[in-house]
């Protein structure tokens, strides 16, 4: 039996000092064993204090590195904003993919929206040549639809889990219709393909899974 002389308690488990007051425990009788504890002791998963330390060190290192590079080399070929934006996109993509790893259709839908917005922004930064809406968004929409189609065949996903995201991707694919109508694009072919492809899928899904779509919407949109 292990007892704490200060707290005047019996202590379970393999403690050698009192878990409450850190006084050395008095061990009597069958010294080694004591009464077993009810708690398991899994190793630490991570260490908060250490993680914070490492994070600060790395950040500090990066800042110093940046200052040193800046001193010797002044980014003649491209602006720093591209480097930063690139890093930002990398991290955002990682966050989206990790957070949405359970539902691949959702991850694709989110990435499609994210990349579309980013490409429009890049285009704007570069003095608006229109490449983002002419090529990026329509082509990305078509490939996303194909990607969703393939991945739901490969991964075991319930219809109700992906159907709304499939429709979301389809809706993004329909946006180029606006570009066509407003005559914003020089080369209409990618947009025409995207709109036609999306429209067929949209109507097809609605015809086949109408009740499912309505039920999912009712469930998710209840107020």
């Amino acid at each position: 039996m292990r007892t704490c002389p200060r707290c005047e308690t019996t202590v379970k488990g393999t403690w050698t000092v009192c878990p409450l007051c850190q006084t050395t425990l008095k061990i009597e009788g069958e010294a080694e064993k004591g009464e077993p504890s009810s708690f398991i002791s899994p190793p630490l998963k991570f260490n908060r204090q250490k993680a914070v330390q490492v994070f600060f060190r790395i950040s500090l290192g990066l800042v110093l590195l940046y200052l040193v590079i800046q001193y010797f080399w002044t980014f003649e070929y491209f602006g720093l904003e591209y480097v930063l934006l690139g890093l930002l996109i990398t991290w955002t993509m990682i966050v989206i993919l990790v957070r949405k790893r359970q539902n691949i259709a959702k991850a694709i839908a989110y990435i499609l929206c994210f990349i579309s917005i980013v490409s429009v922004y890049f285009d704007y930064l570069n003095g608006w040549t229109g490449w983002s809406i002419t090529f990026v968004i329509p082509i990305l929409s078509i490939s996303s639809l194909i990607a969703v189609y393939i991945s739901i065949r490969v991964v075991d996903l319930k219809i109700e889990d992906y159907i709304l995201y499939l429709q979301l991707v389809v809706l993004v694919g329909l946006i180029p219709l606006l570009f066509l109508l407003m005559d914003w694009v020089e080369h209409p072919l990618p947009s025409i393909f995207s709109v036609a492809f999306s429209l067929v899928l949209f109507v097809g899904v609605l015809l086949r899974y109408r009740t499912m779509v309505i039920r999912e919407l009712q469930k998710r949109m209840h107020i």
Partner: protein
Amino acid sequence: MEYGKWMRLDNASNIFLAARNDIDTKVFRMTAEMSDSIEPTILQDALNHTYDEYPLFHSVLRRGFFWYYLERNDVNPRVQEEIESPVSPIYKTDERNFLFRVLYKENRIHLEVFHALTDGTGALWFFEDLITDYVRLRYAKQQNAGGEKAKREKEDIEDSFNRYFKEKKKTTRFDRFIQPLSELYKEQRANGSFVPKITDAPTDKKVYQIKGTVNPDHRPRIILLSMDVKKALELARNEKVSLTIYMTALYILSVYQAREKEEDETTISVSIPINLRQFFPSVTVRNFFSTTSVDYTFKEGKAIDFNAICRKIDDQFKAQLEKESLENRLKRHIEFEFHPAARVILRPIKDFFLKVVNKLNNRKVTVAMSNLGRVHLPDEMAEYVDNLYFYTSVIRPQFCMVSYNQILNICFTSPFTETDIFQKFVENLTAAGLEVTVDANQVTNEELSGK
């Protein structure tokens, strides 16, 4: 509820979803220590059986545009061996996981529940039925083991908040729109203050907040104290208060003794949940509770009178248990939930608002306690169940008490490594003549490596 069917969350659940984080996972655990080591296959059979009787436990949590909702799942839960630290997160976004888990290790069975599913009472019913089934199956050969299970009277998916506190006769939408706001306004006028108060805290004083070193991997510090329930009751009777009030008062005193007094006045408040089933007849398995809070202000230099603390918080507690005051508060909560404007706000924004309200509420709470009272198992069962206790994940040091088989179990959980408050608490108990057994978990690398 058939597969694919869904239902709204109850009024209390939304706050758990907004308030949960890595440290306070809003998961609580019940543990039964059995007389023999656990047979996993039999426990699985028992779980299958109990699970069939509790449709609510078939739910998974999903996210909609405006609200979270519960949806029925079609797979069966599996018992798992306990390998992770207690009360680790259960609800993970986008995963169709059950909102509870059944674990076993050596001679212990654990039930862990995400609080948005049900409260302590609902979980305890499930847990009692689970261990009854287990004992019945495990000791089938012994005569009468477990006996025949009495049919439990319960309403599985009834939302009792709505049954009792939702106004049904309101005619126009406009009324519903204006009602909670005008009431709040009236209340403010009565209080003489003009700034709307959105928290429920009864005190306007600055409330002491416990600070400490957060545990390295966010597992909670757990201190389980076991003692004789009769002797503890005697102590409470000497002060002429209930055991809940006695332990709460002792806790307030221990916090004050353990921590430095920074100012002339130190107000320590304790949040206490109340089981509403005892005031508003209901046998729902879902959440049906409310919280009250009591506080005591110490004045620097003035002698501490333990009996005065007991008296003061006993009076406060009783006043808050008045049916009318409970009713008014809950009605307002429901009115806000069903307020037309609140309903059409997108869920992430609602979550944000609830987070803010929760933060403000937390500033008025020093510590918390929760009492499940006495758990009684049939005599044929008691032979096979040695002990039973529960505890919860926390954002501030809290204790959960339950008595079983003449043992009073007080289980402290804390997000902080420090144990000074619990040490004072134990010291006060032993000084009053109680024999206390301490069981603690290990949270730092030094403790784990056996230093």
